[in-house]
């Protein structure tokens, strides 16, 4: 059975304190691993798509990586405006429907 686990469920960081969020998966036929950011009461905001093990993508303070078993979202020197829930999602079939994980709620404090 396909399974994806995001950890930690919640993370509190001081401004400038780098860390990583994890999305581990056992999904057969993974076609893509996606990272989204979601602010309270808003729609998911697209961040990255990763397709193959070893792939890395960067955007400002965020860097996403993918191995055969997990994906990491690294946050370097975070700022309070990075506070949000970060969602991992995956696509396993035609039609590109996404299945979402439960998310990591990140809070960055001054």
């Amino acid at each position, binding site marked *: 059975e396909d399974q994806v686990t995001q950890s930690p469920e919640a993370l509190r960081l001081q401004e400038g304190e780098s860390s990583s969020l994890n999305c581990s998966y056992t999904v057969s036929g993974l076609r893509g691993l996606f990272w989204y950011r979601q602010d309270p009461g808003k729609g998911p905001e697209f961040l990255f798509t990763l397709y193959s093990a070893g792939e890395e993508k960067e955007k400002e303070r965020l860097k996403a990586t993918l191995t055969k078993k997990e994906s990491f979202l690294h946050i370097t020197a975070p700022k309070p405006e990075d506070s949000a829930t970060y969602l991992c999602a995956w696509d396993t*079939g035609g*039609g*590109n429907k996404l299945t979402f994980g439960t998310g990591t709620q990140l809070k960055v404090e001054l």
Partner: protein
Amino acid sequence: EPEVTQTPSHQVTQMGQEVILRCVPISNHLYFYWYRQILGQKVEFLVSFYNNEISEKSEIFDDQFSVERPDGSNFTLKIRSTKLEDSAMYFCASLNYRVGEQYFGPGTRLTVT
């Protein structure tokens, strides 16, 4: 920058009433989706739509639900005879097929009383 838009932002309806949620996908996208998120829970796939027909639907998407692309820009989700448990945020998304990136709208908060 093109974006997915949704109306209304908040809809309150009484149990048993019909509601129509509206979406305008990004103009050159061809694949469209509806997802929902019950408060405090995961984002869940409802239905995907391509070439004027449903391409895939989840178990949640039963006969109570229907989707339509009534014209060249709008994409709608109709919920007939709403139930209390239909209260959720409903998100529309459209796909840039070339790069496989799905973009979500801001959502419609549906409250069924």
